[in-house]
């Protein structure tokens, strides 16, 4: 069972609510995914169309809403969004995203760390979205983040776990759960992340823009389970050279 900040999750797949073709498709796909936590963003209400409330289709009893600070370009904006999220009854959970570059949407490490330090002091349960930098992961953890969310590849690019070797280091060193987020484009990608030992994954784009999002959500759910079971069952060693009986060349000096 996965535990983050004292809360247990049966599913290690977290969902995103963006980019779906309609609220109904989003609702069905998330249900098919089996996920228990979904990210949501904060935006101004469209005064010309105030009834349009995509999130009203989701049952807040079933899903823990994880507000994100998407749109924030620096720590100050992220902190403001965090406060707005909390005021909306979103609780203290927060996915911290500080992305000053709208083209790549890569997270700013310095602003992310600054915001994490400040928000932890304010009582937030911060899950920072970050580039797969092992030292940054340690710094965020030391600052009190309840998990770390290193990217597999840039948001929406569906390229999979390009940051594999760094994520392995993060997983080996982390004392908090590691949730691989962003760029996971296919079920095989999430299986790979889970086989590496990731505690969970977050998938949004790949499900939302699939031809059949509901079936794709199910495929991702199965892949997360498969990857996790494989990890827990002890994967066989990848041998770089054959292992014959061992001659003791070079040990003749031992007495």
């Amino acid at each position: 069972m996965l535990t983050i900040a004292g809360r247990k999750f049966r599913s290690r797949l977290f969902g995103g609510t963006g980019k779906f073709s309609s609220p109904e498709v989003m609702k069905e796909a998330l249900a098919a995914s089996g996920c228990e936590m979904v990210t949501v963003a904060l935006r101004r209400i469209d005064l010309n169309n105030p009834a349009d409330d995509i999130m009203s289709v989701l049952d807040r009893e079933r899903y823990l809403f994880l507000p994100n600070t998407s749109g924030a370009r620096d720590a100050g904006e992220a902190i403001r969004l965090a406060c707005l999220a909390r005021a909306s009854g979103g609780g203290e959970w927060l996915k911290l995203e500080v992305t000053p570059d709208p083209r790549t949407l890569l997270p700013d490490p310095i602003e992310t760390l600054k915001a994490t330090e400040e928000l932890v002091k304010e009582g937030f349960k911060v899950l920072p979205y970050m580039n797969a930098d092992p030292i940054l992961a340690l710094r965020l953890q030391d600052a009190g983040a309840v998990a770390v969310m290193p990217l597999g590849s840039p948001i929406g690019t569906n390229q999979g776990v390009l940051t594999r070797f760094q994520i392995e280091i993060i997983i080996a060193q982390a004392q908090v759960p590691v949730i691989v987020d962003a760029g996971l484009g296919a079920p095989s990608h999430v299986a790979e992340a889970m086989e590496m030992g990731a505690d969970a994954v977050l998938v949004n784009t790949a499900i939302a823009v699939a031809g059949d999002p509901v079936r794709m959500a199910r495929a991702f759910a199965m892949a997360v389970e498969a990857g996790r079971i494989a990890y827990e069952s002890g994967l066989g060693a990848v041998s770089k050279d054959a292992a014959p009986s061992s001659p003791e060349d070079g040990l003749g000096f031992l007495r």
Partner: protein
Amino acid sequence: MRILCNGEAREIASGSRVTDYLNQLGLDALSVVVECDGKILTREEYGSHELQDGAVLELIRFVGGG
């Protein structure tokens, strides 16, 4: 009187409370976050806070996001 709401100029009746304006827009208070002149209001304050002329209002809600 005039207020600025989500960056747009809007005319509202004097003495309006936040709840009145939300009702006018057909918004459920539970799904909206209100920031007035840079300060986030609590739900209780929606009913008591009287809007002044020139107030800067931000009405925020959860939307889909990754």
